[in-house]
């Protein structure tokens, strides 16, 4: 066979074949691997650990908030717990999760490349990520950090009596890790595409990963240097931001959000990409309005750099600045709306199969719409006066980050799991768990909208002045238990499947795309020869016409 096309003319591989997982087994062969697939798996394991730690912190927060005067923590400890929760979840889970795990694993496969452009840089990026994470863990273990994930000065620079230095250095390393990954993806997408893989034949996941990488390259250096200035002020007393030293604390906020607003799109765009893949694969249909979905990612990436001031409406930035930021924030809702409506139309007249990844995709739609629309309350300047710094904001960002980004991640993991490990998980159990997660999530975070609207400030350990906040907090904590249970079950059956799962064929979902034309798990070098792409992206008509949908309508190997 000389060439493969995306329609997948390759029959399933012979089972005894060596694959990337077992071709070598020494520890060193993993620790020093240059293989993008192995690095993806390493990210998966690492991020799962960080997610568990961050979730444990969330569990503590919710347990503490069931009573207005707290249950078992000191205020100082509570502050350290929510800081650790936010810092770990943002810097060591979400910013790296989809690009690190799914991006590394599937981008080269999707574009028909042997590896990313700079495999060694990729490995270095992983170690920066782990190194930074270890510093953060060290910060937590050696006393904790109590600044909140935003590190606002002058509290973080001059007043906080905690391990700010370790945490910030960790975040700095994680930032470089994501810069390396982004540079790698940009070059890979530009230069490593297989012959015939034109820009408009790229799966939408690639488009969104590309847009994400642009944001990372442009934004991350700014936060890196800003955190360094803050740290210099803290350790060396070289003043940059504190009024005591002649500086301006609001400038820090500008620099911080200049990155950290785009960063929220770094978190959500890759999941948008996953969402497009899932909806196409499980509706067996092209993504509606491919070009609009592709370019809306770029529009979000660009506009995302112009709205940071919406985090600072009441921070004493100029009123007119605020007006401009508010306007552009509203504009950015439009490309997002375009995506939502195109996805909805993708399902229309499709042939829908409700496997677990599709349940996650549907749940993503529900949760992200709520999260995104409540963003509008916050970008409306006058309502933000009341809502800023309250639980309304907390609910908003959990809806977009957990309901959106994490749900997308889970959907993607369920979708590519057979490809990554060659094993099927129990699909029915996974579907039920996805629904448990959906319900638990809403029970956790919907009450927070109400309690925020009632005026409960965030980062509050005690709320004894307003005991009527309590019922909502109890609901939220109950929801968190259900949500936590859902996550535990998910982790459980995924690990179970590694050993006991049925063997996956090369294309268990009957999906379209280069990654589904090679064996599961893939060979170390991905493709026996460089594939030549001859058909359009998501061309399910061609796939069906070639008779390839037969036998793949149910995931193979599922009893």
């Amino acid at each position, binding site marked *: 066979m000389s060439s493969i096309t995306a329609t997948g003319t390759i029959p399933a591989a012979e089972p005894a074949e060596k694959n990337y997982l077992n071709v070598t087994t020494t520890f060193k062969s993993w620790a020093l691997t240059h293989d993008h697939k192995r690095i993806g798996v390493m990210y998966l394991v690492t991020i799962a650990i960080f997610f568990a730690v961050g979730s444990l912190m969330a569990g503590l927060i919710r347990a503490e908030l069931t009573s207005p005067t707290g249950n078992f923590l000191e205020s100082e400890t509570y502050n350290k717990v929510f800081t650790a929760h936010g810092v770990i979840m943002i810097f060591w889970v979400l910013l790296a999760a989809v690009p690190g795990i799914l991006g590394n694993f599937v981008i080269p496969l999707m574009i028909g490349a042997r590896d990313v452009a700079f495999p060694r840089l990729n490995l270095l990026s992983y170690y920066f990520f782990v190194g930074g994470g270890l510093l953060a863990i060290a910060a937590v273990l050696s006393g904790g950090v109590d600044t909140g994930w935003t590190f606002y000065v002058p509290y973080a620079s001059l007043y906080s009596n905690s391990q700010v230095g370790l945490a910030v250095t960790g975040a700095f390393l994680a930032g470089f890790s994501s810069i390396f990954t982004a540079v790698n993806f940009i070059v890979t997408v530009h230069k490593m595409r297989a012959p015939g893989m034109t820009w408009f034949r790229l799966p939408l996941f690639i488009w969104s990963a590309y847009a994400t990488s642009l944001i990372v390259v442009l934004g991350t250096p700014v936060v890196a240097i800003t955190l360094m200035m803050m740290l210099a002020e803290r350790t060396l007393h070289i003043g940059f931001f504190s009024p005591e030293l002649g500086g301006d604390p*609001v400038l820090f906020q500008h620099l911080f959000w200049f990155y950290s607003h785009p960063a929220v799109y770094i978190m959500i765009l890759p999941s948008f990409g996953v969402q497009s893949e899932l909806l196409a694969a499980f509706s067996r249909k092209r993504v*509606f309005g491919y070009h609009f979905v592709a370019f809306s990612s770029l529009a979000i990436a660009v506009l995302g750099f112009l709205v940071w001031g919406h985090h600072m409406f009441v921070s004493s930035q100029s009123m007119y600045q605020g007006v401009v930021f508010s306007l552009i924030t*509203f504009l950015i809702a*439009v490309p997002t*709306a375009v995506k939502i409506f195109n996805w*909805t139309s993708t399902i229309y007249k499709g042939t829908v199969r409700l496997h677990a990844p599709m349940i996650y995709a549907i749940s993503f739609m529900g949760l992200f719409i709520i999260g995104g629309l409540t963003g509008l309350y916050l970008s409306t300047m006058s309502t933000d006066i009341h809502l800023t710094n*309250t639980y309304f904001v907390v609910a908003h960002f959990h809806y977009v980050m957990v309901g959106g980004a994490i749900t997308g991640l889970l959907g993607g993991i369920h979708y590519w799991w057979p490809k990554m490990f060659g094993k099927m998980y129990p699909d029915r159990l996974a579907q039920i768990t996805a629904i448990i997660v959906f319900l638990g999530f809403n029970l956790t975070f919907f009450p927070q909208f109400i309690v925020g*609207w009632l005026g409960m400030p965030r980062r509050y350990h*005690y709320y004894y002045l307003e005991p009527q906040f309590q*019922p909502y907090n109890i609901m939220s904590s109950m929801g968190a238990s259900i949500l936590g249970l859902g996550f535990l079950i998910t982790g459980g059956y995924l690990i179970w499947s590694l050993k006991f799962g049925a063997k996956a064929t090369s294309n268990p979902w009957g999906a379209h795309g280069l990654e589904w034309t090679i064996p599961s798990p893939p060979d170390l070098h991905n493709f026996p020869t460089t594939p030549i792409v001859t058909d359009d992206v998501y061309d399910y008509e061609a796939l069906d016409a070639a008779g390839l949908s037969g036998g793949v309508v149910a995931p193979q190997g599922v009893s």
Partner: protein
Amino acid sequence: MGNFPLAPPQASEFAHQIDPLFYALTAVCVFFGGITFLVVIYFSLRYKRGTKADRSNPKHEHLPLEISWSIFPLILALVFFWFGAKQFIYAKTPPKDAMEIYVVGKQWMWHIQHAESGVRENNTLHVPIGRPVKLTMISQDVLHAFYIPEFRIQYHVVPGRYTQSWFTATKPGTYHLFCAMYCGTQHSEMGGYVYAMKPDDYAQWIKNGGNDPQPQTLVERGGSIYTKMACEGCHTEKDTIHGPSLYSLYGKTRRFTDGTTAVADDAYIRESIYKPDAKIVAGYIDTMSPYVSGTQPGAISEEDMLALVAYIKTLGTTNMPLDKSLSGTQRGVTPNSKVPGSARVTAVGALGFEKDNPEANRLRNGKPAVGALGSEN
């Protein structure tokens, strides 16, 4: 438990402006968000594999659709932007004739001074209804945010620069004052109450130098005098070097430096205040100066003495008044059990913050932000 309020009370003019916008947003979001999600679910079931549905001629691109679902949200968005910005600008432009109040935030309390009268208070804010009130705020250390949910106002309080906010209260009542910007360990305890009063009551309150104008019980009046005369400077919940604790004093047998004893009854308490050197409590020296009887400033009239004694009798018992208006930090609830009663000490002079927590102030370099405010007005 068991009660689920769905909206915060509306107690200012802004509340009546902002809330309609909030509910309009809610209506639009529930409607469009709801429809979109329902459509997603409907399609997923309608076109589920195996169902008989018309799947002919699926479209993959449709320009008119794309344009319409870009334009329509855009218009809605612009409408909300417009009203939001308009209201925000209004909320940022205090009227010229507004009453002025100065606010200083520090870890972890609010110092408030009424500009016209000079009356000061801590962690409470008394305002008249129907009159615009302008707040000029500054922080002495880190960032804080002055937040009164029932008034729908919030603004950051920043070190090194003044920020402003204003409101017109519309409904008499007791509301909440929060610090909404994370500021360190006791961020969640940095707050108190806002009292919106009828203009007459407010005028009376100011005239009383910040004491509650409402008819008071004897004990409550005693408490006010206790605060006004700054007895707390020496007598706190625990014995200190400044003075013995007066908690649970009544009825106890007291031992004096000369070895004699006496039971602390009403007369003893009165004597201890008018003639402290008559009997000196063992372990102390005679640092308490005698208070004269009379009505001139600094004196304690016999009438007041009655109230004072009545109040001291309740200290440390369950009858102790918890009237928050006495002073904001005297909330009676001190969940931070590590420093019981410490709040009471600081309640003395509104601006006597040099005393407490030197660590938090270590970088102030003797530049009290308050002084700056004081000289401004």
